[in-house]
């Protein structure tokens, strides 16, 4: 191959590049990867980058990056080009990370008890002012928190030295990202990781599982661990969800967990199920609203007390966060000498705590050299680059710094090291600054380091000039630690055994999410089909007043608003063009704008499906971004001055394909446990109600003569029954036959009768609770209502469908009325009976 990908790659001036030296020659460990990239070539690499983006988007549906205070949301991406470490270089880093993690563990113990670091003056107590929890909380007097997982952010300075930017001891995230990035890179660079011999992540996940099992309170047989996370809209949710899947643990949102009787419990459909270990991915300040120093009232009330009671174990425990307080960083090396007699081998990037008069004076003397970190909210420091600020702004910062110096940490700007990146799609490799999030597990069987960790390409804010590394980053990197021995090994995928059997144990919130996923999916599908049928059959056709009213009413009812009911509708008098109905307006509103419009239902579907992430198959995640995109398209079309029928038709077709795929995936790829039953219940209930609504608006009053089949064809198309009808009846569309097919035909999967049968089957498979008996009774009485009113009265009703008979029916309104009531009860009982445990706080 003669590609020049690597030949054209040059380090940026004045910076250390991980891959090549100043002359452009590859550094040890990079030769094989650069050769492999050359072999792939730019256009193929481009294709693979796009594949990585697609896979990441699919996996990360809903994972958005909160861009600082501006709340800009953008999806994470993954650079197809990994970051590489040679074995020896990595072993040195890993040893330094272990040493550091063990030090931090001791620092945490000391600050919660003996406080020798403070008494000896190694760490000034004022540096911890913003993080005084450790010094004040109740359990400081009993057993101090033990650090289990220590994260660190690493960068390379201009000399190529690897330095720690900050530690992450509260919630040491990043391991889920690392696993996810590897899974994607293994697909876009197939065989490459193993051919080069890349250290795998499995020893880490295995050690994590056994460390968590060992951490369980005494006397618990087969302890249950869950991954505790915040709500799905939090950044990091997808990473944690991915980690939970890989570990075989339940993902539990804080709303799924309650503390009772000194223990923690998972709220499930069967009641409360005990939890022994919580792998904590919720910051300690949002963990338990009963405790001091909590921000807001989120979290699991009482869980910290359950920990003090030894009823449940948190990993990491609350209280470990103090070790990652940025103001501690300048004192860490001295703390190491004090506690262990050694200096840290892995240095920290220089940092000055301004509470120290000398250090503050250095910063005030030449502020343009520094990045200032405001630690008012310790978990979320605000960083500002002082260089290049205009005079007024700079003076403001310096005044605040003089006023409350102990609140600030300053760092000299340093040129950060780079590594080759491809993500910008420019056709060549570019040197990009990279930070690395590493993980050390301090389990009982000795420390385990995740090989490599999670790479982050630093955004332009981090700049090549500023050394600002805490800024938002939107691009991940897989990190390879070359392990030549590994090449010889055969990879055997050993799936982790799920610790929780989702067929029997279903969190209440997940059940609710499944139910609404089913309902919104059905609503979106029927509404899309109805609008499509309206567009297709009314274009260029003069629609009579009564038909227009019927269509408008059907559109409204299907999208969740009251039907049109102008004077004369009951009498069946043709209102002509005076009906006052503007179908164009109705179609637009049904497309977008209303809460239950096609677009609104799609968005609601995506939101619900995210909450049911664990129960839906992986393929589902690829559909959600598509549905989101289609919703945006519909919004745009509905807002355009002229409704473009062709584009709208195309867009609706585009909606129906992923919806059909979703229906197929849920039918074929989801275990038939209670979770699936809730989804199916939602779908069946929604479909029954929508078909009743369509029958009510479109069949009553019946079309005056058999030839006028516009309404009947639309209703059949909306219910996906037109082809079936033609096969069955081989005739003009007749209202009696249509009514029979949509309401009573137990073999038509779109009929109300069919839905009732399925609802009964679903309910029989649900846990035995009184609400289930009430719902079964309601479904039965809906069935009785159908029995009592069908066949419909009127000439030719229930006839064989032979041509010639007029096929008028009466009584549609009555059967709809009698059937709908009990079905609405089923829905009400759903929210009130199965999901009512949702708790609210009042104090």
């Amino acid at each position: 191959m003669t590609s020049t990908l690597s030949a054209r790659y040059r380090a940026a001036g004045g910076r250390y590049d991980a891959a090549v030296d100043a002359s452009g020659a590859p550094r040890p460990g990079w030769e094989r990867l650069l050769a492999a990239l050359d072999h792939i070539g730019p256009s193929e690499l481009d294709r693979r980058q796009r594949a990585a983006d697609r896979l990441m988007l699919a996996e990360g549906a809903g994972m958005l990056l909160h861009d600082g205070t501006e709340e800009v949301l953008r999806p994470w991406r993954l650079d197809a080009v990994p970051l590489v470490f040679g074995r020896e270089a990595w072993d040195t880093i890993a040893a330094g990370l272990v040493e550091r993690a063990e030090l931090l563990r001791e620092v945490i113990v000391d600050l919660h008890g003996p406080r020798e670091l403070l008494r000896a003056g190694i760490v000034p107590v004022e540096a911890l002012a913003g993080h005084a929890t450790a010094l004040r909380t109740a359990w400081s007097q009993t057993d101090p928190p033990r650090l289990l997982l220590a994260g660190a952010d690493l960068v390379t300075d201009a000399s190529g030295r690897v330095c720690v930017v900050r530690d992450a001891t509260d919630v040491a995230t990043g391991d889920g990202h690392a696993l996810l990035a590897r899974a994607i890179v293994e697909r876009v660079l197939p065989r490459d990781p193993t051919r080069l011999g890349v250290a795998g992540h499995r020893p880490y996940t295995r050690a994590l599982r056994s460390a968590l099992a060992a951490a369980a309170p005494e006397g618990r047989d087969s302890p249950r661990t869950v991954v505790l996370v915040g709500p799905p809209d939090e950044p990091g949710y997808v990473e944690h969800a991915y980690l939970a899947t890989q570990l075989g643990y339940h993902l539990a949102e804080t709303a799924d967990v309650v503390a009772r009787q000194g223990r923690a419990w998972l709220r499930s459909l069967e009641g409360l199920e005990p939890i022994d270990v919580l792998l904590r991915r919720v910051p300690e300040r949002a963990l338990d609203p009963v405790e001091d120093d909590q921000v807001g009232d989120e979290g699991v009330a009482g869980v910290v007390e359950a920990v003090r009671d030894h009823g449940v174990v948190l990993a990491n425990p609350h209280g470990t966060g103090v070790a990652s307080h940025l103001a501690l960083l300048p004192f860490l090396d001295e703390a190491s000498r004090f506690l262990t007699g050694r200096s840290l081998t892995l240095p920290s990037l220089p940092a000055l705590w301004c509470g120290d008069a000398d250090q503050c004076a250095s910063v005030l003397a030449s502020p343009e050299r520094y990045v200032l970190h405001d630690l008012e909210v310790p978990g979320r420091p605000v960083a500002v680059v002082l260089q290049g600020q205009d005079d007024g702004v700079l003076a403001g910062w310096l005044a605040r710094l003089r006023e409350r110096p102990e609140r600030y940490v300053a760092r000299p700007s340093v040129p950060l090291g780079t590594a080759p990146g491809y993500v910008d799609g420019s056709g060549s490799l570019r040197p990009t600054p990279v930070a690395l999030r590493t993980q050390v597990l301090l389990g009982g069987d000795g420390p385990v380091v995740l090989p490599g960790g999670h790479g982050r390409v630093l955004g332009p804010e981090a700049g090549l000039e500023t050394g600002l590394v805490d800024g938002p980053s939107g691009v991940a990197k897989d990190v390879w630690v070359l392990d030549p021995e590994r090449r010889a090994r055969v990879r055997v995928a050993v799936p982790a055994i799920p610790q929780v059997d989702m067929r029997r144990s279903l969190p209440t919130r997940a059940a609710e999410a499944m139910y609404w996923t089913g309902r919104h999916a059905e609503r979106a599908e029927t509404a899309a089909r109805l609008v499509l049928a309206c567009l297709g059959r009314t274009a260029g056709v003069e629609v009579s007043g009564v038909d227009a009213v019927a269509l408008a009413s059907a559109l409204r009812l299907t999208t969740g608003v009251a039907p049109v009911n102008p004077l004369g509708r009951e009498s069946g008098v043709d209102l002509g063009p005076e009906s006052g109905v503007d179908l164009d307006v109705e179609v637009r509103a049904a497309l977008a704008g209303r809460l239950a419009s096609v677009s609104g239902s799609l968005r609601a579907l995506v939101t619900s499906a995210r909450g049911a992430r664990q129960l839906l198959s992986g393929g589902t995640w690829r559909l959600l971004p598509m549905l989101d995109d289609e919703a945006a398209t519909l919004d745009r079309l509905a807002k355009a001055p002229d409704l473009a029928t062709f584009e709208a038709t195309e867009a609706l077709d585009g909606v129906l394909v992923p919806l059909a795929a979703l229906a197929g995936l849920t039918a074929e790829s989801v275990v038939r446990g209670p979770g699936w039953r809730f989804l199916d219940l939602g779908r069946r209930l929604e479909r029954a109600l929508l078909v009743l609504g369509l029958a009510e608006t479109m069949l009553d009053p019946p079309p005056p003569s058999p030839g006028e089949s516009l309404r009947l064809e639309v209703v059949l198309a909306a219910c996906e029954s037109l082809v079936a009808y033609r096969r069955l009846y081989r005739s003009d569309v007749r209202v009696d036959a249509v009514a029979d097919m949509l309401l009573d035909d137990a073999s038509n999967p779109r009929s109300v009768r069919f839905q009732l049968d399925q609802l009964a089957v679903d309910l029989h498979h649900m846990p035995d609770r009184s609400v289930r008996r009430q719902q079964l009774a309601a479904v039965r009485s809906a069935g009785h209502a159908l029995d009592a009113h069908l066949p419909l009265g009127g000439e030719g009703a229930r006839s064989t469908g032979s041509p010639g008979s007029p096929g008028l029916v009466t009584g549609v309104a009555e059967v709809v009325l009698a059937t709908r009531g009990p079905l609405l009860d089923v829905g009400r009982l759903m929210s009130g009976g199965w999901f009512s445990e949702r708790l609210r706080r009042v104090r």
Partner: protein
Amino acid sequence: VTRRYQVHHRTEYRYGEPVAVGHTVARLVPRARLPHQTLVSASVTVDPAPTHAHQHVDGLGNVLTYVTVEEPHDLLAVTATSEVEVAPPPAPGELWLRPWEEAVAATASDRSDDGLMARLCRLDSPHVTRHRDLREFAAASFLPGRPLGEAATELTEHIHQGFEFLPGATDVSTPVLQVLDERRGVCQDFAHLLLGALRSLGLGAHYVSGYLETEPPPGEPKLAGADASHAWVGLHLAGSGWVDLDPTNGLVRPDRHVTVGWGRDYSDVAPVRGVVFGPPAEQKLSVSVDVVPL
């Protein structure tokens, strides 16, 4: 003269509708060992009966009682009863008579347990933020070189005389600067104000929660804040501990105050706080405090 008091402190929450579960943290047990205070006995009872009750000592040395009620209840009553001996406070350390700037310097370099806490109590806390207006307010009494005791006494009396004790005019979240501006509030506000003033000068001062005798001895006026929890300030003197200042009553080194807890400000020592689960209805809080000499 050592006095003995019985303290009875009852807190009631009425929720309007039954709540299912409630977690409550109460800081109601007086400090057991102070130079001038001995705890004879203490009990905290909760109605309905909690499924979980545990006492902890927090990092500041305060006793907190953690209770969980797990049955439907529309009334929660927390009753604390204790018997306490209060002696006149010991004479303040030497720094009391020295220029106040010396106390600032002494606290800044104090690495004793008390000193570490006092150094945190020179900085900002959730309810008390240092400010130049507060520094100016304090500077009228804290003239350069003036003895600490003289200046602190004057500032304490200045708040007592210049500010109106007016229950209902403020609440827990009223900022100190507003209290300074409007010149009215309750004991909590005056304690926060004095803390803010002292901290703005660089002195270490903590918030003290506790009680006053309900009925004064014959012939003496009833003190403000006697029918509920009271709050005042402890000023740090490196090497000798804390000197109590009650700005609400203009008292320096009061000898009839029962100390329950201390912290950086109210947020560290709130008598009763917690979380309940249940329908969102209006909750009503009522508190009664009786301090009877034995």
